[in-house]
């Protein structure tokens, strides 16, 4: 083979180091298969494009306002509902339900995953029932939960919890089971206690799986929330939308959808942020 061809470096990025500006920088650029460096705020691009498409098609009359309200109507509606306090009120109660359900679901899911991943007895007792629960759509349990707990907050939070703990359990458990046995051996040779083994090896090793589960869980929490709030509630964003349906207020329905969308985007972004911080030791394509 001859030497690698020397190519002019494509001027994609200026030098980061001012001390080097002006110096020649000619290097062979291999065919890059990874997606390249991360760019800040790049995740906003997709949602913004969607928003732009909505605005343009509304403005040009392509989109009938009776089918989908115009973005500016939705913004105006948001303003009105904020002014009379209904939006904040409903948002707060929805966020509280989702937050509580998420919290309990994450704790239960992670604990069960640990118990089942670290002991054979735990696995025999826990894994089967969770797999069964997984096969039952969470929303199919709602009638039973209503019979047991009525239609108060307990039932709503419980429905969300039941939806959340399954993905957290599954992914954390998979992450935990996937921990290389070589690290377990190492832990033994350096004489780690069981508690230190869990803290130093099991938890960090299961963390990537846990975060994956968390992302499913967060999305799932909002989905469950919509359902419980639209089936039987007297407050919350879902209730607000359901009420709007009876009065044919498309703008409020679309506003509710937008709020759910924004909440979903923000919460997923938050999980990803913490994931990046916590897993900075990983070298992956995501970067």
């Amino acid at each position, binding site marked *: 083979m001859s030497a690698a061809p020397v190519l002019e470096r494509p001027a994609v990025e200026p030098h980061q180091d001012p001390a080097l500006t002006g110096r020649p920088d000619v290097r062979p650029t291999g065919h890059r298969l990874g997606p390249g460096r991360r760019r800040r705020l790049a995740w906003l691009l997709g949602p913004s494009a969607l928003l732009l498409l909505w605005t343009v098609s509304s403005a040009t009359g392509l989109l009938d306002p009776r089918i989908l309200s115009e973005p500016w109507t939705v913004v105006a509606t948001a303003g009105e509902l904020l002014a009379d306090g209904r939006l904040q009120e409903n948002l707060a109660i929805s966020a509280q339900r989702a937050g509580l359900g998420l919290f309990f679901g994450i704790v239960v899911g992670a604990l069960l995953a640990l118990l089942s991943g670290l002991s054979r007895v735990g696995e025999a007792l826990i894994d089967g029932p969770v797999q069964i629960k997984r096969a039952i759509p969470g929303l199919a349990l709602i009638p039973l939960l209503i019979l047991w707990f009525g239609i108060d907050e307990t039932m709503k939070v419980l429905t969300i919890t039941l939806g959340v703990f399954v993905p957290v359990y599954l992914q954390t458990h998979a992450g935990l089971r996937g921990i290389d046995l070589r690290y377990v*051996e*190492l832990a033994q040779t350096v*004489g780690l206690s069981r508690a230190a083994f869990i803290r130093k090896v099991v938890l960090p090793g299961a*963390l990537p799986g846990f975060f994956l589960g968390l992302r499913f869980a967060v999305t799932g929490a909002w989905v469950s929330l919509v359902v419980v709030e639209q089936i039987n509630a007297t407050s919350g964003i879902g209730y607000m939308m359901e009420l709007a349906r009876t009065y044919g207020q498309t703008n409020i329905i679309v506003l509710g959808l937008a709020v759910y969308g924004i909440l979903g985007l923000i919460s997923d972004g938050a999980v990803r942020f913490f994931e990046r911080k916590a897993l900075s*030791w990983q070298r992956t394509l995501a970067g």
Partner: protein
Amino acid sequence: MAAHSGGLTAVAPSGTAPSAVTSPGGTVSVRNLIRSFGPKGVLNGVDLDIAPGEFVALLGPSGCGKSTLLRALAGLDHDVRGSGVISVPERVSVVFQDSRLLPWDSVLGNVTLGLREHDAEARARKALAEVGLAGREKSWPHELSGGEQQRVALARSLVREPQLLLADEPFGALDALTRIKMHGLLQDLIAAHRPAVLLVTHDVDEAIALADRIVVLDSGRVATVRTVTPEVGSAVDAAGHEALRRDLLADLGVEPVASH
């Protein structure tokens, strides 16, 4: 903690539990050690003694059971069938062929792993300086080269002041130049800390350069034991070096090649 603690993962099905005791004098003794995977025996009655501070190299063709023996001494073979009596000192450290650093912990965190003393961090820093990695404490393992990672692994084992250092082809994955440097480093470290060493290797020259005694394993038994005098071990052009090398290769069933 003695090396033969119970497993950290789920409880293994109880089989024929091999006996193991902590030796008071810090010597290693293995008597009639038998280990098998399935019907075929891997170790068929190994006897081995290592005195405190003695450096023993374990040679043998690939698959002859070197790692199996080392893992038995390290107490890592809970699930392997066998019998025999093993006694090892209280403090045993293991270096594996892969550096086996926890990827989610810093270099310093890896060296202090499992240390309970209050001055653990200071000692770990000192150990890292000893292996020439002062200043890299905060790095992630993946930011180090293969040789550097293996030096961290050495620091991690020596910071525990082991009476016995078990090393399973610790330099096997390194390039020749790095390997030679690591030999020198290991010799310095051993001179400073004076543990007994059992080094598994398939490299005859490495065994001669480092060991006081070379044990050749064959068919699951100790086939030959050869003593390396300091003069022979110190230089390749020493009298007797070439003869020892030839003998060892013959022990391993390799015919000398008349190419040089």
